[in-house]
């Protein structure tokens, strides 16, 4: 099991000389430990970068109380995968201006990464990414969620995402009229 593996790794690494540590240990809300390379953590997460720079990294496991072990596992997984992936040329975006959207399409491995997640895991991951300030991961996960919404009617979206409809029928009709252009099928 990967969680256990992460834990085992963490314990193992703790034995390594402290001075040469190039990983950080993260502790989920339920106490599980995960190991992630310092470089990846600092590069991908602004929060962790700040903690590393600020020296507030706990060698025995930095507490991330907001993040459950599953989400943290995914985060660590993402970090590792990201470290292994070849940075594409798109990393140097060609032109930054008013007009260009900063978001870049998820790469193939990122797609696969989020595709395999369950709904719950996905949303947990979004929150974790948000908490850790992992912008890229956030983009990718949000992109995934929006993909799931794409092409669906409101009813379908409600069903998929378990949203409660608190409109009355009249209100709904009103909205449809107001935003007729959006509900116009072409």
């Amino acid at each position, binding site marked *: 099991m990967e969680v256990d593996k992460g834990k085992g790794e963490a314990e193992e690494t703790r034995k390594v000389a402290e*001075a040469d540590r190039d990983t950080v240990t993260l502790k989920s809300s339920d106490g599980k430990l995960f190991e992630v390379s310092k470089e990846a953590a600092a*590069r991908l997460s*602004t929060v962790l970068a700040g903690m590393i720079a600020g020296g507030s990294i706990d060698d025995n496991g930095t507490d991330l109380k907001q993040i459950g072990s599953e989400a943290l596992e995914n985060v660590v997984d993402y970090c590792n995968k990201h470290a292994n992936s070849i940075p594409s040329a798109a990393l140097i975006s060609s032109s930054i201006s008013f007009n260009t959207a900063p978001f870049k399409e998820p790469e193939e491995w990122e797609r696969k990464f989020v595709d395999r997640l369950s709904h719950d895991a996905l949303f947990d991951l979004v*929150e974790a990414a948000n908490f850790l300030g992992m912008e890229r991961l956030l983009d990718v996960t949000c992109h995934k969620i929006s993909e799931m919404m794409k092409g669906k009617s409101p009813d379908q979206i409600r069903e998929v995402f378990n*949203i409660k409809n608190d409109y009355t029928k009249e209100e709904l009709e009103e909205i449809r009229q107001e*935003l007729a252009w959006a*509900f*116009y099928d072409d």
Partner: protein
Amino acid sequence: MPPPLPSNRAPQRRGDGGVVGSLPDDLLHSILRSLPLKQAARTSALSRRWAPKWLHALAAYPVLDLTDQNFARGQSPARAVATHGAPLDAIRVALVAPSASGLVGDGGAFGQDVVGWVAAAVAVDLMAPPSQDEDASPRDDRGRDQQELHYVEELGLQRRHGRSPRSLLLILLAETFQRLIEIIRLRQNGPYLHLPQREPRAMIQQRDLTDCACDHKSISTLTRTRGSDRRIRDDDAAAIHRERSTRSGDAFEGRNSLEYLALGRISLRAVPLPAAGLAGLRSLSLSHALFLTDDAVEGVLANRAALESLTLTGCHLLTSVSVASERLPVSGARGLPRRARAPVVPIDLGEVEGDIAMPALRDARLTRTPTSQDYEYPFLSRVAHARVLTLCSKASREAPHLRVPAQRRQQASTQEILPRTIRPYRIGRGRTVRPQGADLTQNVRRSDKSEHLPADRLCTRSEPFAIMIQNHQRLCPKISSTPDGPPLPTGPSAVDEENHKRAPRLRSKFSMEADCPPGRARPSTPSYNTRPQLCHAIHTPSSPLAPNSSKRRDSLSLSLSLSVHFLLPQNRPRNRAATRPNSLNLGHLPPSPNPLMLDLLHLPSNNPTFPFNLHDVVCGGLNPRAELLTSTWKGSSMPPPPPQLNQGTPSLKIFAKKMAKVVALLSLVTWNSSWGSRNLHTHTLPQDLRQEDGEPGDTSTEDLGPRIKMDGWRPPRVPARPEHNRQPRWSLAASDAIMLHKHSSGGLASDEGRPGLAGLDLEGKWATKAESDGRRRRRPSVIV
């Protein structure tokens, strides 16, 4: 196929809002942002909570592009057709978020929503045209009112019956911190977006002000500036007058105001130009605005205390403009030396663009320095106090710049100064001067010869130079002379003549020039001294996802991407000293999760002086993901670097945390390596990274300053994958090398198509934790 449904623990944890509903708003915005506009709008039918989200999501994005075909189709084409012959096809709203007041971080959500509200206000107008009867009760107009209500409630205002979307827009403007709101017509020749002519009906009465949650001052500002709308209805005028008399002065002090406003190709008939929230306007740009009359412009200028820059482009109804601002000079940062806060105050009165004729105003740029305490200044007489005045007109291209020192300006008649193509200006209070056949060229020459310009003049030669920075106080790219830099060229020279001739062409690209005193940069000599100039800088937020945890005052939670365009004269100026490296002071950049992009663009391919005119890059508070990128190289073939590359000592000074320092160092490496890929080779650039101002209490920063020596680095000559045995080697002796090492693997790896740094040679001191204790370990060279 839909992914598996949430496990059964979801409902307890997530509550009724659904899985998505449990996410914070900014995440929802991110999600919605990725959706097509139509899809996003549909989500308003999901539930009440979702109803306003899509607009907010749009608003949270720096660029709001409402170009969806269906959206355009839905915008009540009949109405638009009736006014301007074609339906609305696009509104694009660009928002630049940074706030000099530092409030964006705290009020982020609100701030981010502002443009959405503006857009909503516009959209509501178009979607649900209100009935002709302004006094219609909300019942009759429920759809619109309902929608409006969302925003009003979220704004913290109570519902006001009968408030039109337009007035809502004004409220929003008033509530906006310094922001850029740019509503642009996308299609140059497309139909105009017409904002309805209906007057904003709902005056915000005093009683309304008291019970709203907004800043009282801003609302009073709104009321007051609304009062100066000359199109206001008579019966309201009395109330306004009362308002104004009781609240004088507020408008000039209120901070909640737009700082930068650019409107293009929209009708201004319904937007009262001395509009709310514009009291703090520093830069106003109106291009191709319909129905922009002289009166309107004067109205704008009358009450704008902080206006620094005005650009009117292609406004063909304008015949004469009298600039009679009370305090046209910027009210600069307090505490700085006077010289430092004396900014350039350009007024750009339009350039002819395309075939749109603007009969009266042409390319008149006026630059003045507030050297006098005399603030009663209508246009030209005010300008007479300037040390340097630059006026150029289209016809004066052969002699585009007229520079008259202050002493002479007092004597020079206005006729001499005004190019003849400029139609009568109303000067001062009703005085009209008609330039009559003055020989402009002669005047120019004469004044060129005779003037004696002080060395510390602020602006001048009108060489291609423009900085367009919205966040004036926080981000201050400025070119300043370095203490050990070359002496400023004094007095005009032949070089200047050359540049003057080129200036109009270059300036056609960049029309705005603004400068401001930096937050905490040490203003040595704020002079725009040397020839190749920082020409154009824009920074925009690239993402709304900003942390709000930062408490430092200068830690705006916003992201920047800074594009610096260098426009260089095509020929190298004869004055070699003038081409010595410049320094770029980026001021104190707010840390943010998003990368800082420094983009160097627009390099003329035949300019031999580039790239290292940039001598000093000074910035602070770089965020950890800062990157300095030189991604776009316009020139196809670059000549080898000029010898002065080696003369200067390019340095990157960063006062920031260790992390930032290292990344910035890396950025520099990346930067240089990217130059290298463009045939820039064999130069020795001793890079000196000094950490000047660390976090308070961060004692270890002082001696951590890594020194990077890039000795004998030979980047590949061709932009292709470098051969292994010819990999560039960088010798880095950095105390922070370990961090560097860590970063380098990701940041500097060369990949196909971008031959970056292929070898990174780390030697010398490695930083470990022990280093802060003064102990340092040596390691052999490591090739990454």
